[in-house]
């Protein structure tokens, strides 16, 4: 497994770990009748759906899809690295801004939350661009 796939998959596992801890914390807090952590629920879903599953799939697909060419089997690896940075920074910004916006709203949190959405969407477009030319049949048939 090449370095970029290793980094994506290991980071996906860290998101899974964070989601597990957060999910457990939310269950315990709900069991004790504490609703103050409820604004963290969307973050839990997105840690699982974006940080874990989407990033894991991207890492495995970048690793295992048919090679781009003999000389550059993974195509332009810069796309994958920028996507990695955008996806994870977007998620971290969301983790900061979204709950704070519910607890103690400040104008800067709105900007950060909107920026986090743009970063995650950018990351996905870059992953799509990186994978697209590698979806091909035998003999390079597209």
């Amino acid at each position, binding site marked *: 497994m090449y370095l970029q796939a290793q980094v994506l998959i290991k980071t996906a596992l860290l998101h899974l770990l964070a989601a597990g801890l957060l999910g457990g914390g939310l269950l315990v807090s709900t069991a004790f009748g504490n609703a103050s952590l409820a604004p963290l629920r969307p973050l839990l879903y997105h840690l699982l*759906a974006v940080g874990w599953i989407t990033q894991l799939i991207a890492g495995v697909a970048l690793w295992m899809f048919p090679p781009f060419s003999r000389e550059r089997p993974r195509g332009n690896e810069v796309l994958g690295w920028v996507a990695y940075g955008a996806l994870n920074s977007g998620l971290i910004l*969301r983790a900061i801004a979204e709950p704070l916006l519910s607890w103690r709203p400040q104008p800067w949190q709105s900007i950060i*939350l909107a920026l986090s959405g743009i970063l995650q969407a950018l990351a996905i477009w870059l992953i799509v661009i990186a994978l*697209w030319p590698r*979806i091909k049949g035998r003999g390079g048939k597209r």
Partner: protein
Amino acid sequence: MPLLARIMIRTALIWQALGFSGAALLLAAKAGVAPPIFWNLLEAHLQALFFGWMIQFAGGVAYWIMPRFDAAGNRGRIWPVVGACIGLNFAAVLPTLRAILSMLSLPAPLWLAALGGLSAMLGCAMLALHLWPRILPFRNLPRHADG
């Protein structure tokens, strides 16, 4: 990678890009920097990413990569996979259409959502129908009579 897998994986990637773009609009609306009308995208966002992206992508890869029935590469009946592809895409298209109608202040009938749900069920069932017999242990593949 067979043609049908290429179609499913490419379509899934398009839904992924559209779903995340919709998510960016939703987050902007939540942050108050975009009009609340974009909240209409929530159901479409969920359906596009769940059925259009994740299940269709996994289905396309599974159709491509799971064990085959013989050394010639026979993957079995193709029509359930075609049905799954159509069902999963309708499951993403119909809620998206409903969201667009809502945003344009046009009538957005509930039956579109119901039909989307039905398409999702059929799509998933057909995918399972195709993949079930391909879950096989490692074995020597039978060769054709002509060797």
